[in-house]
């Protein structure tokens, strides 16, 4: 009797193994296996959400599963290293903002060159935004500068992590205007928002998707955005540029492929992504998420990528002085 059990189990195991191997018998790109997009941040964050939005819009178009996988380990380097180690066949991509990919590479030793990464598709632009509590005595950017010049180091600014997407524009702004503020690092946009609302810091630096709802409800006021043009979800907020300060440092969530992925596959997938984000359902999803869609294909994304690298190099070397 024990023997029978043994055989039955073995038989079942074999059946399953056959089943598994059969199911990977398919045709051509992109149907051979699951497409995976790796995110160097924890689940629930901005890049994760944009990735999932893209995935759900694109899946029906290519008739293949797209999984978004979060690997926040080692400050994001695990995800990067993982994608580098994958076979370069167009089934593994990296979705990130410039922090883990560029900033880390410029400030520490990493195992890749920035030129090894090919931008495939940019999902959205993430614009650093300065904001205050609605009843704050700071009326606008110029007011901030005037008050800060009169009494330096009085205002505290909560900005995400050190050298993060909202922090760098703050540094740039301080350099340009010569004002001094107390820079208070926080774990991210949420904490900066909480501190501003609670009156623990005077000014906050974050992104529209984090503060959008509170601005609409009148609990916070956005002072300025750091992009070329105004942000659709904050139509009344001027850009720094309009106000006369050249602080233009938007971030992006872009999908990257590592160096040896074939060009034709990149071409194929970026076309599909562009198509996906132009559908009505994608557009309405994005509107709900306060995500400003910028469906740029590989050529434009690559230009923006290179420009960002240059900007950051300059900014970071300024910092060192």
């Amino acid at each position: 009797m024990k023997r029978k059990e043994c055989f039955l189990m073995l038989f079942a195991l074999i059946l399953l193994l056959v089943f598994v191997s059969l199911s990977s018998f398919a045709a051509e790109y992109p149907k051979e296996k699951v497409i995976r997009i790796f995110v160097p941040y924890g689940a629930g964050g901005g890049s994760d959400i944009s990735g999932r939005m893209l995935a759900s819009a694109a899946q029906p178009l290519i008739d293949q599963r797209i999984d978004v996988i979060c690997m926040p380990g080692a400050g994001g380097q695990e995800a990067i290293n993982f994608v580098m180690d994958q076979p370069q066949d167009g089934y593994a991509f990296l979705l990130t903002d410039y922090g883990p990919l560029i900033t880390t590479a410029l400030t520490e030793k990493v195992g890749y060159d920035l030129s090894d990464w090919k931008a495939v598709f940019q999902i959205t632009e993430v614009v650093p935004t300065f904001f205050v509590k609605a009843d704050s005595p700071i009326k606008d950017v110029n007011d901030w500068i005037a008050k800060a010049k009169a009494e330096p180091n009085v205002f505290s600014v909560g900005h995400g992590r050190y050298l993060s997407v909202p922090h760098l524009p703050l540094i740039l702004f301080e350099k340009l205007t010569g004002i001094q503020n107390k820079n208070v690092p926080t774990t991210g946009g949420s904490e900066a928002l909480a501190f501003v609302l609670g009156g623990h810091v005077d000014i906050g630096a974050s992104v529209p998707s984090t503060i959008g709802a509170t601005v609409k409800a009148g609990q916070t006021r956005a002072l300025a955005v750091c992009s070329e043009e105004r942000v659709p979800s904050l139509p009344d907020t001027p850009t720094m540029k309009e106000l006369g300060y050249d602080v233009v440092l938007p971030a992006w969530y872009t999908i990257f492929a590592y160096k040896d992925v074939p060009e034709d596959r990149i071409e194929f997938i970026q076309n599909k992504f562009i198509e996906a984000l132009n559908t009505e359902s994608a557009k309405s999803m994005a509107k709900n998420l306060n995500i400003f869609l910028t469906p740029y294909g590989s050529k434009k994304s690559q230009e923006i990528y290179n420009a960002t690298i240059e900007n950051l190099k300059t900014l970071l070397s300024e910092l060192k002085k």
Partner: protein
Amino acid sequence: MDFIFSVLQEAFVPEVIMFAMLGVFLGVTVGAIPGLSGDMAIALLLPFVYKLGPVSALGMLIGIYKGSMFGGAISAISFGVPGTPAAVVTMEDGYPAKKNGYPKKAMLTALYSSVTGDFFSTLLLIFLALPLASVALQFGPVEFFALYVFALLMIAFLVQGGIKKGLAAAGIGLFIGCIGMDPVIGTTRLIFGVSRLRGGIPLIPLLVGVFAVSELIIQFAKEWYRSRLKKIKELSGLSKESGYDPSKDIMSFKVYLSTLKATLIGSVMGTFIGALPGAGSSLAAYVSYGAARQFSSHPEQFGKGILEGVAAPEAGNSATCGASIIPLLIFGIPGSATAALIGAALIMQGINPGPLVFQENTLIMFSFFVVILYASVMNLGIGYALIPLYAKIAMVKSRFLFPSVFLFALIGTYASRNSVTDVWILLVAGLLGALLKKGKFPLGPLVLAFIIGPGAEKALRQALLIGGGEWSVLLKSPIAIGFYAISVVSIILLIRFQKKLA
């Protein structure tokens, strides 16, 4: 009236009920498996959230949260291995309770207090969301630091092997927490060139390693020791304690009432801490335990299997379910990592957490409230049904049990963040835990210090930055002074208490 009717209609659709039940079932199961956590299950299911209607999706995710808060207690009590980080404290009295012959009482106490705490904070969510959230906002770096100091001092209360060992363990925990990027500037420290450690030591591998793996290693060692001594009797060491007397292990309403004070303390603490952004269910469990011990009529029995020591942390960790959603819904600021995940799910359904969430999505939000409430009830029912099933697993012959649970924990740890480094950390932590256990060190303080350390450091440094480098800024807040006062009073009481024992 019409509105109430449509809300109830939305909430009681069969599909919603089914997904809520599925969620609770998954939550309890995942919670009971060491190495897997509710957060992981929620993160894995996020992609499927699209396919469901908003109320079903949210019902399912909330069900998982609730279920996992209780599920962790099952393995904590049955085999001394916490199924989730939040169940670590439950184990302090839960496992001794099982060893003393009343596992069923302990588990049912855990279940009932979990549900009570959960229900309590859900009701609070529904009725007091706004005022509670504004209190949470009063907590800035200065207040948080005071809270963390208070919690770290609570460690002294948890100590079993003597204060010296407890504080040394806390020191070790603090130290391990300092490895990696510092919380303020991000400079890497203490990684000795191992770049994989840049992000610091992750919580779950450390936790599962220090508690679960170390226990498994030790049991393996004990089994081996016994088998080498050629003992013929199958000594399970865990499940078949000689003299299990079912008649002494009956749960009754009277028993529930006897622990009610502890349960309520846990519920209040858990709700409060759950509403604070950044504090989590583990912290809630620890503080609840410490507070319950403080107010108990039998504080000396804590750690020996007293049911109050199971009721308080379970109520505490479950109370964070409703509470952590409060700041999420009102301000878009999640009160815990799990709430952040639920926030992501809300966003994917087109619902923007934040001040306008009720105006923009009135029907859905109110239906959601109803679902959260009845999910608590489901938790009660499903938990009750699953206890005998999952606890039986502990009855399996131990030589099969330990290696299997170990592998589950190992693979589960890997699956949680797709990282082999995590597995190595798991093993090292396991070794550390085993060596410390052999020396009769209390491990609770180590883990708590590890969890709280970075937060405390960050709060301290943020406070100093805001205050321009003046240490006096720490005393500029009434809330902070309050916490420090309670800490001082508690230390004095503790010293007096110790003298009484001597």
